[in-house]
């Protein structure tokens, strides 16, 4: 059984998706004009989070590999940009391309190891990577600046935008441009033969290899693509903060990224947008909530983290398939009830269908749903 075609997003061809990305660029540019400097900065933060989450959702949602090390891959991109712009005075675009290539190369190495490992062992290796790599900055302080980090000058906006063009808006534009490139690439990859092969590998490796798919090569490819996205995100982060320091790429970041894709909705690009928005907004909200009460300073100082944890637990209990899954389910319910209201000829079947949909969507992540449908 297939999902009703109404709730499936229409599949876009290459040209149409390019058109959509350009439209999104215009919308984002208009939005950034309307926002204050501070919110432009938050938009930029959200954009680079989206870049890394889109890559991670490809890796985890589509190819079924888990990575706790994407924070470290962001660090690779971040330090590449900081070194190239800070020391070699490269322009922004080549530095970002270099960040993508460098992190892709690191992705090849980690990905090659990753294909030989499964489940908790893969998580373990990528975890070690997340812990170990940023520590290199402290090991070679003369190159990487130690805990102090590397500082770069803010990117200067082109002269045709005028002298008074706010720096924060320019940063938001750069970050959004990067995010849209990632969106275009990942969308078309997911809906290509490679994307379908990755899904086949995720669902059953043995069946996929019997069909002639090269499992290890596909899994490595997924890792490299997601590493490249993470590298771009790291480079964008450096441009926005004008700083690459190990404190930005803690284990906490790697875990937050995984949280972001799961909360947003695993395996869906829209989910990556929700995830990015949550990663930017949740810390701000939890901080505001913590300060809304007059607790003792020790409680107030540590409350944001506790609220953050509580939200995660609640979200996982209420929407195990993430925000995108919850919205999809809501859409399904609305469309079913509309259908019921329109035709009263099959009232029993309609309600049963709704219950079944609720059970499927609510209890298992999207890939589980597909499996059940196949059966």
């Amino acid at each position, binding site marked *: 059984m297939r999902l009703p075609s109404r709730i499936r997003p229409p599949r876009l061809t290459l040209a149409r998706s390019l058109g959509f990305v350009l439209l999104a660029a215009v919308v984002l540019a208009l939005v950034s004009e309307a926002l*204050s*400097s*501070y919110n432009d*900065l938050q938009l930029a933060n959200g954009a680079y989070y989206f870049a890394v989450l889109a890559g991670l959702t490809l890796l985890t949602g589509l190819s079924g590999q888990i990575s706790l090390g994407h924070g470290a891959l962001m660090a690779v991109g971040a330090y590449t940009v900081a070194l190239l712009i800070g020391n070699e005075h490269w322009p922004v675009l080549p530095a970002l391309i270099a960040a993508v290539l460098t992190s892709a190369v690191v992705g090849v190495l980690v990905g090659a190891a990753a294909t030989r490992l499964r489940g908790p062992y893969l998580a373990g290796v990528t975890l070690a990577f997340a812990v170990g790599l940023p520590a290199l900055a*402290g090991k070679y*302080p003369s190159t990487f600046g*130690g*805990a*102090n*980090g590397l*500082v770069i*000058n*803010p990117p200067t906006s082109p002269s045709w935008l005028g002298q008074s063009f706010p*720096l*924060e808006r320019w940063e938001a534009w750069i970050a959004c441009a990067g995010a849209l490139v990632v969106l275009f690439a990942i969308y078309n990859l997911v809906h290509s033969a490679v994307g379908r092969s990755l899904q086949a590998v995720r669902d059953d490796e043995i069946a996929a290899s019997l069909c002639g798919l090269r499992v290890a090569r596909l899994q490595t490819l997924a890792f490299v693509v997601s590493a490249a996205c993470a590298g771009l995100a790291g480079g964008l982060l450096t441009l926005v*903060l*004008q*700083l690459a*320091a*190990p*404190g*930005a790429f803690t284990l906490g970041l790697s875990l937050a990224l995984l949280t972001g894709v799961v909360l947003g909705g695993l395996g869906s690009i829209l989910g990556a947008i929700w995830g990015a928005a949550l990663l930017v907004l949740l810390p701000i909200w939890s901080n505001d909530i913590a300060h809304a009460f007059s607790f*003792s*300073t020790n409680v107030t*100082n*540590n409350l944001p983290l506790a609220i953050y944890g509580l939200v995660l637990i609640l979200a996982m209990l209420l929407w195990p398939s993430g925000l995108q899954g919850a919205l999809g389910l809501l859409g399904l319910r609305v469309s079913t009830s509309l259908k019921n209201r329109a035709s009263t000829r099959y009232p029993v079947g309609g309600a049963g269908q709704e219950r079944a949909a609720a059970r499927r969507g609510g209890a298992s992540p999207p890939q589980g749903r597909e499996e059940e449908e196949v059966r």
Partner: protein
Amino acid sequence: MSGKRTVRVVGCVCVATIALIAGGCGSKGNSTGVSSTSVTFGTHQPLTGPAAPGYSEIAPASVAFFEYLNAQGGIYGRKIHLIIKDDVYNPTQTVNVVHGLVLNEKIFGIFEGLGTPTHTKVVSFLNTEKVPDLFVASGCPCWDNGTAQPYTFGWQPNYTIEGKILGQYIKQHFASSKVGVFYQNDDFGKGGLTGIRDELPASQIVSAQPYEPGITNVAPQISSIKASGAKVLVDFTVPIYTALGQLASFTLGYKPQLVSSSVGIDPTTVGGLLKTFSKGKAGTELIEGAITDGYLPSVGEVSNPWIALFKKVHDTYDSSAPFDGNVEYGMAAAYTLAQALQLAGKNLTREGVVKALNEKGAQLTGPGLVPYRYSTSDHGGYAGAQMGQVKGGVITQFGPRLITTPEASSPITTYTTPQAAPPTTGVSVP
């Protein structure tokens, strides 16, 4: 009829134009964050994380002192507010929270932003945005350049000045002892090391071991200093690493004379940390006899009128915190901020407060034992310090008050002007 109306309209336009021009003249300069009844500052502080022990008391103590002043009507009728943001001593977080304070909360200025690795990442942003960056809570030499960073002002003595004063003491009293230095691997530790090297012959410093903030094991550094045969251990460390270093020394059976910069030796803080880390087995006795320097009167000196004032404010507004060096620091810096606002005059602008500090900052007197260095080109804070020693869990100060400059081989001289007592209300300015 219509002629009369024209005259009236023209008259209105003229009046409005004059009012606009006059208004423009009156508010010359930027007064974001200022109203007729309040002025709002923001700060980034390590409320949680590795630097939080001790340092998390500083900004709340400043707020307590502002509350004391606000209860008397504030400065020119403006109450001073301080928005405190936690940056976990993580430079990336510092950038985020300072962007938020300046762009979103519309603060007048940053006050007492804490830490060298953290604050260095926002100085360029604050100066580009022309936001006053007053009295950075760090003695990094990097705040001193008033020409390159006109909006940033230091407050506590430059670490190189501290290093020189500590170095001179070692030269005078431990001339034949080998010296080992344990320092934070950033501009804080390196600034201090520069001062020590300026005073001591290179052959006397047998080992200099850096640590990266965030690590938890300092035994390799301490055993390396022990192996070099150093009899004097100089610490340029934040309190948590002073404590870890002393515990490592204790475990290794290494008993050098400890000489610590004022930054890392507050006995209440370090003693508490030692107690926590050793699960109650050790405490202040591990830093007993340590030599240090100080630029404010010791909190143990109850007869000092400034300590009496701060204790009174502490007991009224901040009694949940221990009355220690961190609380004194926060209140003394708050007093200086209030003085700066008083100097800047009734029409408070960002440019005005900078101009006032450039012109009259060096004449300010207050809780400090030594004068400030403020001038248009030099934004360094206190010009020196007095030596002190940890005795019975408190710092006892001794000897003359010493002043110098960070320049290599500039002389260390004695400062003799007696300390003025605090005013009964408000703040006093020259």
